[in-house]
Each structure stands twice: as structure tokens, then as C-alpha cells.
């Protein structure tokens, strides 16, 4: 059973998962997870490899729909509305809940086109000027503008790994999401690029609800305000990041963060 710390102040929940189970074929990957993702905070998911962090994260914007074998049970709401409601338009959902992947995956298009892609398909921009403005704003927020403003027509794949990842974040921001999901966004990056991304997450955190999966305790401690510890498909403990790291209530959490397994 999940231990939820009781000292969490009443922040408004942006997303709320209730009793979620996920199966790959007959294999259960997530076992009755319930969690509130707060508005305007960064929530970190930590846990040993294979415990289901990515699986659960992908439930939050229904990216599991793209895996034929995956089946999701339970209820997840965004602003109170069930996102697994069959009437809900998954395209709209994913515009509101953006995602950044572990490996930077810019499209093989120009930097400009990478950012403009989302706004174009969602019809955000009236004309070229408006689109230019969105591209610039997104790149600025992702802290990439100064580095790429003179080479917007270069291919996105020609950037360094860290720049590519910030490009992917800028791309996600460009469609003006409400929640941003990040699955180990720094695992392919060096410490300097990682520091840049962490800074970026801190900047963005007031504006969006952010969920980040990470294998780095330090990173979770640095960027997040809430931490959830997953183990074997279950959410073991959830609370303020400071509490989870200094004062976990569960032995398994304690063992994991002190590096005794995982």
C-alpha cells in the first residue's frame, strides 16, 4: 500500500490518477497507483529500473495507446476530466500534456520547423509573423535562442545532444501545454548540459505542472518539490521531496535512496 505523507499542503491537483493498473499483454507493469500531480510544482518519479516509471508517465498523456499490447485500467483526470473517456480527443489531450523523451528526438527538419511543427498542426499561428514569434518565444524559454538564432534553418539533428534536448523541450513548450512529462531527459547528456536543463526546469516550474522521471537522486532533490518512489509496479511512497530524501517513512525508500539496491 502506498504511503502518502500527510503534511502535503492543499495544492490544487492538476492531474489525478486513481487506482491505475497497466498490463502489457498478461504481464502487469503498474499495480493500483493513485497519485495527485500538483499544479505548478515539479514532481519526480524515482525507482529502480523496470519498476514502471516510464509506463506510468506514458499513461498521463496516453502514449501507451501507441503500444498495441498495453492496456490501462483505472481513472486519470486532467482538471477533473477523465482522460481515458472514449469521447475525449487524444490529440487535444497530448497538446495539453506534452512530453520530452529520454533520447533527444528532434525531427529531421530545420530548427525552425521543429518548433513550428506543433503550433502549425494545432493552428496556433495566423501568419508567418505570429509563427516566428512563437518560435522565438519557445526557444528563449528553453534557453536556446542565443545559441541558434542565426542558424534556424540548420537541421535540428545537427545540434549537440544537450541542444537537441533543449530543442525538444522548446518544441513541447511551443504548443503551450499545461503539463510537461519528462522521461529521464538528461540521461543522454553531460553534466553541463544537464545543469542547463535543470535550470530550465526550475524556470518552467512556476508555469507548468512538470513530471520528471530520473535515476539521479541529486537531480530529483535539486529540481523537484514532490517525489514519488516506485518499486515493482507499485508506488511505495509519495511526499515532499525534502521529506522523502531526509526522512522516508518506508524502509524500501530508505534503502533505495541510500543506494542499497536499484
Amino acid at each position, binding site marked *: 500500500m502506498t504511503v502518502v505523507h500527510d503534511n502535503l499542503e492543499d495544492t490544487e491537483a492538476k492531474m489525478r490518477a486513481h487506482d491505475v493498473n497497466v498490463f502489457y499483454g498478461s504481464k502487469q507493469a503498474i499495480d493500483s497507483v493513485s497519485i495527485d500531480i500538483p499544479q505548478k510544482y515539479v514532481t519526480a518519479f524515482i525507482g529502480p529500473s523496470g519498476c514502471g516509471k516510464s509506463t506510468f508517465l506514458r499513461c498521463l*498523456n496516453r502514449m501507451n495507446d501507441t503500444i498495441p499490447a498495453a492496456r490501462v485500467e483505472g481513472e486519470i483526470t486532467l482538471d477533473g476530466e477523465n482522460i481515458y473517456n472514449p469521447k475525449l480527443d487524444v490529440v*487535444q489531450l*497530448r497538446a495539453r500534456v506534452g512530453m520530452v523523451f529520454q533520447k533527444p*528526438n528532434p*525531427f529531421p527538419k530545420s530548427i525552425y520547423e521543429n518548433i513550428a511543427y506543433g503550433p502549425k498542426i494545432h493552428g496556433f499561428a495566423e501568419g508567418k509573423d505570429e509563427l516566428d514569434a512563437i518560435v522565438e518565444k519557445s526557444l528563449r524559454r528553453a534557453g536556446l535562442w542565443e545559441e541558434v538564432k542565426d542558424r534556424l534553418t540548420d537541421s535540428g539533428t545537427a545540434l549537440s545532444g544537450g541542444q537537441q534536448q533543449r530543442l525538444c523541450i522548446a*518544441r513541447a513548450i511551443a504548443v503551450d501545454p499545461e503539463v510537461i512529462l519528462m522521461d529521464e531527459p538528461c540521461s543522454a547528456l553531460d553534466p553541463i548540459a544537464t545543469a542547463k536543463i535543470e535550470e530550465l526546469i526550475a524556470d518552467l516550474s512556476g508555469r507548468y505542472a512538470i513530471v520528471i522521471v530520473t535515476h539521479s537522486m541529486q537531480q530529483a532533490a535539486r529540481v523537484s518539490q514532490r517525489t514519488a518512489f516506485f518499486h515493482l509496479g507499485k508506488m511505495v511512497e509519495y511526499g515532499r521531496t525534502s521529506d522523502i530524501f531526509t526522512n522516508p517513512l518506508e524502509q524500501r525508500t530508505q534503502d533505495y535512496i541510500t543506494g542499497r539496491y536499484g
Partner: protein
Amino acid sequence: MSPAILLLLALALGLAGWLAARGRAWTFKRAQPGVRLAALPSYHGWYVALWIVIPAVLFAIVWAALSPNLVLQSVLASPAAADLPVFGLQRQTMLAEARNVALGNSPAVFNPAAAGLVEPFRSAISFYNWIGLAATLVIAFLGGAFSFLRLRPDFTARTRVEKMVMTILLLASLVAILTTIGIVASLVFETIRFFGMVSPIDFLFGAQWNPDPMSNPLNPQGDRYGAIPLFWGTIFIGAIIAMIVAIPLGLMSAIYLTQYADPRVRAWVKPALEILAGVPTVVYGYFAALTIAPGIRDIAVSLGISNASSESALAAGLVMGVMIIPFVSSMADDSIAAVPGAMRDGSLAMGATSSETIRKVMIPAALPGIVAGVMLAVSRAIGETMIVVMAASTAANLSANPLDSMTTVTVQIVAMLTGEGSFDHPATLSAFALGFVLFLVTLGLNFIALRVVKRFREAYE
């Protein structure tokens, strides 16, 4: 004594050598039970066997090529050959007749004058047969003895056998390359002969194709060899009409198969498409000539186009397009499948629909591979012969109307080679020039396409 018998003989000797050498290796082993042989006994066997068979077979091949000539020489030296006609067809026929009788292929000579030659032929043939047999035996024996004497307990037979096998494999792969070179060389040679009679300018830029195989070869009439209408017909049928059919259909089927199809559907449709690629083109040819072409003409006529040809470019092009679909679709399928799934996920996670993802991300990312596939398909289409021979006409029209009859390079190659012209008539030789141009174009297309594919692969690795 046919070469086949020499071959069998060599193999039998090889088997004997194999057994003997293996036995010898075993005796090494028995003589010194503690010592390990450097190679298994069977490798000793193979070593000796290869040394017997390879030289003997090589000799048998050389002998098969050489002996008919030697036989002929000795027959011509015989007194019976003195009253042969000196030159010409008659001399050839008589020799051939006598030879056939001597070999027992025909019962008797037709021309009595050749009868005297039968006996010299017979004796020369048996003489050289015996020489060939004896030499094969000697060579096999020498090879066997040489290798057998080298066998020692520490003889590294395995590495040597492997080296020999590797050399054989290398030679086998060289055969294909050398054949290609030989083909190109002969093509070039005949093409040069043709251009000695007809200027390349007339050929490449002339708009009238009307060679007359019966004309005087000394006056080649270069203005009748303008190949532009053929090039146009080839491009119009193979690269335009066929591609208008094949590109959309091939691409759509690839998109369906990679992005939408249920695995069970894919398991059926993909092999079905591949079977389409294996249908002999002559079958497509029947279909084009017997079903599509008359159908198109009837439709055109019912629409009021009275001069529609029953051998329209449209019919050949449509059927060729269908034939090409599997090539386009399988190349497109491979390239779309090679686009990393992360690309697709990235787009879907932005809230793009699957069709937006395919149109705006997958296809552009796969484009180089798709383009390469189309180029390979074009190069196949313009080299395709059977369909156009059966469905297109031989009339060289320079027209943009798909209902007109048109001809292609390949059709004209067939027409010229099977025409009435003698072999050194420019009309016949023009087939080689056409073939050469076709060869260069398809080579160029394939080369570029393979380069594009390679670059494309590198981009995602």
C-alpha cells in the same frame, strides 16, 4: 571421351586421394598415440583431394577448349583435306558434316566429298582423347603425390584447405564481375562499330527512327537512326506513366502496411505483394496486350477518340506500373520502418494525428530511401523488355498522347536484333548502341540510388 568423363575421372581420383590421405593421417595418430595432429585426419584428406581435383579439372577445361582445334589441325594436315574448297561456307559445312559423322551424331555425310574426311576426323578425335585422358591422369597423380608427400603429423592441413576454399570462393565471385566486364566490353565494341557508320550526333539527337535493314550497309543513312523517339517512348512509358501508377500505389501500400495494418493483415499482404514481384514479366505482357490494351482502346473509342491505338503507350505503362508497385512499396516500407520510432512518438506526443505524423514526419524522414526506391524502380521499368515487346508497338512516334502507339529502346533492341539485317548492318548494330545507352542510364540510376540509400542508412545509425 567427353569432358564430363574427364571430370568424373578427376572426382573419382580425388575421392581415392581423400581416403588415402585420411588413412595416412590416422596411421600418424596410431604410431604416436600421445601426439596431437595439427589438423583432423579428414582435413588431410581434403587437402590431397583438392590437390588432385583442382589441377585435373582445370586441365580438363583447358583441354576441352583446345582439343577441337588440335583435331581440326591434324585433319587439315591429312591428305584427304587437300581437295577441300579453300574458303567459304562450303568448306565449313563439309568439315562440320564429317565431324558429326565421326562423332556418331549423324549417320552419314550428305555431301559425298566430305566422306573422305570422316576417317581422319575419327582417328584424330580418338588420338587426342587418349592424350587428354592420359594427361589428366598424370596431372591428377602428380598433384596427389606432391600433396601426399607433404603430409606430416604437424602438417597444418586445415589452414591450407581453408585458404584453398577461400580462393575458390573468391574466383566464384570474380566470375560474375568478369562476366559483367566482358558484357560491357563487347557492348562497347559493337557500339563503336555502329558509331563508325552512323554519327553519334545523328543517333542521340535525331528525331526520326526508321532504320532500313535491307538498305546498302555502305550507305547507312544516318538520318534514319535518330533515337530521340525511342528515348522519349521509354521515358514516357517507363518513367512517367508507370510511375504515375506505381509511386502513389506503392507508397500508399507501404504506409498502410507500416503504420496501420494489423500484424495479421500485414502477414498476408506483404508476401502477396512480393509474389507480385515474382510473376514473370511475360505474364504481365499477355495481360497488357490481351486485356488492358484493347480495353483502353474501346474506352477511348467510346469516349469519341477514334484514332486511339490498340498498342497504346498507356496500356504498356499501366501494366508496367503495376509490375513495379512491389519494388516501390518494399523500398518505401523498409525506409519508413527504418525511421526511428522515437520520431513517431515525438510527433504523436505533440498532439499530431497519425496521418499528420506520417505525412509531416515519417515520409519526409524516409524520403531519401523512398526516392532511391523509385529510382531503382525506374531503372527496372526502362530496362523492362517483355511487357513493352508484347504491348507497345514498334512505331517510333514522338508524341505526348498516351493513347498513341510508341516504342521503347528495349523493343527496338529486340526488333533490330531479330530483324532481317545482316549482323554487320548498322540497323543490327544500332541495337548495341541502344543497349549501351540503356546500360549507362540504368547504371547511373542504380549508382545514385544506392548512394542515397547508404547515406540515408548512415543518418540513422
